[in-house]
Every structure is written in structure tokens, then in C-alpha cells.
């Protein structure tokens, strides 16, 4: 769910840039370090960014009939961690604005914060917690991806509510109103994306489980156990 160009008034679009910038500066600093130390990760990061972009431009099978796209950042956070995801999300969101006319430039700060920082951090934290509690891998991925999607939309509703507080009840009242109206499309969408990303995991484990082991997403033991259970 992108906030469209021109929708956030001053000072809110500037504020969200200021909130997002420390994360991005930190991300860029770590990217510089990664480029200097482990050059072999550069092409892999590049294909990861392109993957997130292409995934987010595919049309999801839809129930409501509205045009819906996966965010892709939940999957990226599980695979590459939240910090790399925030830089990838920044680049992907600029491309979405310029290639697909989704989102905008003044609202880039707000969109990077909701889709590139808040959602991925939640997805990563949940996935790690689930892994520690040795939850079933697919259930864990489903929960992480769905909640990350939902959280992204809660943050977007919050950003709009702060910019447009209600006359009676202030920010909280308009927050509830935005949440309620976005829920119509976003809740089914988040569940579908969760199911799909859990299935994506199944297919990756079928074909190239070594990638997931290499990225520290799964241990070799878990992969063996899943493959045995399937066989």
C-alpha cells in the first residue's frame, strides 16, 4: 500500500524523510563496508533487489477484484535481514515510482519507513523468534510474512492519521477509521501473501535448499527434516 504523490501535506512528508534517513544512512554505511570486505555479495544483492521489484510488480491472485501486488519486503527481510532490505526497498520504491507510477517522490520517506523499515523489522524479529521456539518452518514463514504485511498497513494508517486527525477524538479516531477502511483490501491480501511466501519456501527447499542454508535462514538439520517428512 503506497501513499501516493502529493497526498501527505507539509510538514509530514518531511518528517517521515527525517525519520527514515538515520536507518538509511546506517544501511548505506554497512553496504559500503560489505562492498569493501565481501565483494562477492554485490551481484547477489543486485539480483535480490531485482527479485523484490519483479515480485512486487506481479499481480496477485485476487479475491476482491482490486488490483493487488505483494510487497515482497517480508520475504526479503527473512532472507537477507532487515538492514539490507531497507536499502533494497529504497531503490525498489524509487523504481516503482519511476517505472510503474506507484507511490511518489515526496511520499518516498513515509513509504520507505512503512514498507522498507517497519514491516521488514517485524518480519525478521518474528521469524527469528519462531525459529528459536522451533516452530514449524512453513507456519513460521506464514506468520512472519502476514504480520509484516499487516504491520506495514497499520503504519501507513498511522501515518495518514497523524497527518489528518479527526475533529472529534483526534488522531486515535482517524487511525481507527483508516485501519477499518484499509482492512477491506489489506487483510485478505496479507493472508494470501503469507500463504504464497510459505509455498515459495517449500519450492526453494525442493530445488535449492543450499541457498537457504548459506544465507543462515535454515540449518542443514531443518532442511533434512523437512525433506524427510515430504519423502
Amino acid at each position, binding site marked *: 500500500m503506497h*501513499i*501516493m*504523490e*502529493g*497526498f*501527505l*501535506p*507539509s510538514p509530514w*512528508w518531511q518528517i517521515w524523510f527525517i525519520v527514515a534517513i538515520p536507518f538509511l544512512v546506517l544501511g*548505506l554505511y554497512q553496504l559500503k563496508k560489505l*562492498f569493501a570486505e565481501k*565483494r562477492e555479495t*554485490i*551481484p*547477489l544483492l*543486485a*539480483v535480490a*533487489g*531485482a*527479485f523484490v*521489484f*519483479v*515480485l512486487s*510488480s*506481479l*499481480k496477485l*491472485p485476487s*479475491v476482491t477484484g*482490486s*488490483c493487488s501486488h505483494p510487497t515482497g519486503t517480508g520475504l526479503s527481510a527473512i532472507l537477507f535481514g532487515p538492514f539490507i532490505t531497507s*536499502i533494497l526497498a529504497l*531503490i*525498489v520504491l524509487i*523504481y516503482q*515510482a*519511476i*517505472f*510503474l*507510477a506507484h507511490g*511518489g*517522490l*515526496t511520499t518516498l520517506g513515509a513509504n520507505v519507513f512503512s514498507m522498507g523499515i517497519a514491516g521488514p523489522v517485524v518480519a525478521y524479529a518474528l521469524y527469528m523468534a519462531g525459529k528459536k521456539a522451533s516452530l514449524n518452518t512453513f507456519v513460521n514463514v506464514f506468520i512472519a510474512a502476514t504480520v509484516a504485511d499487516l504491520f506495514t498497513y497499520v503504519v501507513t494508517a498511522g501515518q*495518514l492519521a497523524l497527518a*489528518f*486527525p*479527526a*475533529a472529534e477524538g483526534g488522531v486515535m*479516531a*482517524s487511525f481507527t*477509521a483508516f485501519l477499518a*477502511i484499509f482492512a477491506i483490501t489489506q487483510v485478505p491480501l496479507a493472508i*494470501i501473501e503469507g*500463504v*504464497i*511466501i510459505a509455498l*515459495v519456501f517449500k*519450492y*526453494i527447499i525442493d*530445488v*535449492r535448499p543450499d541457498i537457504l542454508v548459506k544465507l543462515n535462514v535454515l540449518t542443514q538439520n531443518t532442511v533434512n527434516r523437512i525433506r524427510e517428512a515430504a519423502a
Partner: protein
Amino acid sequence: MIDEHLLDDLALQNGLLEVDARLKLAVGIGAILIGVFSPSPIAPLAIAASMAVLTIGFARIPARIYAALLAIPVSFVFMSIIVILFMTGGGEPLWDIPILGHTFSLTTDSANLAVLLLSRTLGGMCSLFFIALTTPMVDIFSVMNRLRLPDEFIDLSMLIYRNIFVLIGESIAIHNAQVMRNGYSTFRRSIDAFAMLAGMLFVRAWEKGEEMLVAMDARCYDGKFQMIEEERRISATGIATATGYLCACAGLAVIFRSFSLF
């Protein structure tokens, strides 16, 4: 499946391709900023109209595609505007609607805010389309380079840009193969087929990355792509036209600053 046209394809053959990228970016971003700061709907609406004329008339982008692009923000804008209309309040009541014992009232201030936001979004989107449809990404990279953005960021952006087209080709091939095998015939199957597509896309992407690593090493990649820049000067008429246009937009925003519909 990939329902949007990639605007970059259109940008590479638009009528304003030869105009300097810095000039086009300055006009587009300048208009976006004037729109977002304008206190009345007049300036954003004038920006939307003039940008549409520039893009369809001068850059020769087909009007049908332009109209399809304008439909993208509709669902987001529609849902948000409803909330703003009935929640923000202030001013004189225009219309009271009783729903389930509650009275939702539409007031002059909230109606004015909704009109302002609609016009700002329209102006902003038209300015964004102007940039998207007249400036190919390759030109934007060279502007980013001149602006001294971090090399790592530009390099990663360029590599992602290249791989986007590789992966789109892959996903279209997989999707066609799935459609031929009834992959999307029911809702359940389309969920499964979509997930298979995304999973295989990831595996293919990873393999492309590994291949690219070998190729880049073989060519002694040392962490920076060299771009050949030809020193181009922006024509004086170009600068004068762009400045004139932006001043006119800013002038409209100032003159009509206290105008409101209700």
C-alpha cells in the same frame, strides 16, 4: 500478469528524449514541490493540466496509456478521501448522514481539504509521470553520478536495473508455460502456481547472480563501474523555459493562496 507497461520502454522513445535530463528532472521535481506546498487547489490543477499537455503533446506518449496510468492511484485515493471527508471536520456543516444511529457530517473544511488533496495528488502524479515518461533511467543514473551520490548506491541501482529486465523475461516465460498447463484455472491452483513462479524466480535470480559474479571477476571488477560522461551544457533557452514555467506555477500558488471551493 505484469499488467503495467514498463514506463522506461516508453521513455526511451519519447519526443523529449533529447532534452537534457537535468532540465526535465528539475521541472518535474520543482512542479511536485510547488504542488505539495500550494495552499489552494488551483496551482496543482494547472500543473496537472500542463504536465499532461507536455507528456501527451510534446513527448508523444499515447493518451490511452496515460489514462490507464491515472487509474492506478484511484483505489488508494478513494478510500483515504472517504475517511478525510467524514473525520477531519471543522467549519460549517454541509451534509449530515445518519448511519446506525451515528451522524456523520460533511463540513466545509473537510470538503475543502478533500478537494485540495485530490488536486495535489493529481498534480503530483502528473509531474511524476512527466519524469517517468520522458527521462530514461540511464539518464537519471548520470544525473545521480553528477550529484555525487555514493558510488555503492549508484552501482547497486544499476545492477538491479539490469537484472529487473532479465527476471521479467524469466517470469513471463514461466507464466506462459503455467498458463498453457492450466496453472491459473482455479483460485487454489493460481495460488500454488504463483508461489511456484516466485520460488523459481528466486532460484533463477540466485543462479544469475552466481554467474554474474564469475563474469565480473573475469573482467577485473574493482567495485566501481566507470561511466563515460560527455560534458553537455544545458541550452540557455531550455533554462529560460523551465524557469519561466516553474515561476508561473509558483505565481499561481501565491495568487490563489486563499481560494477555496466551499
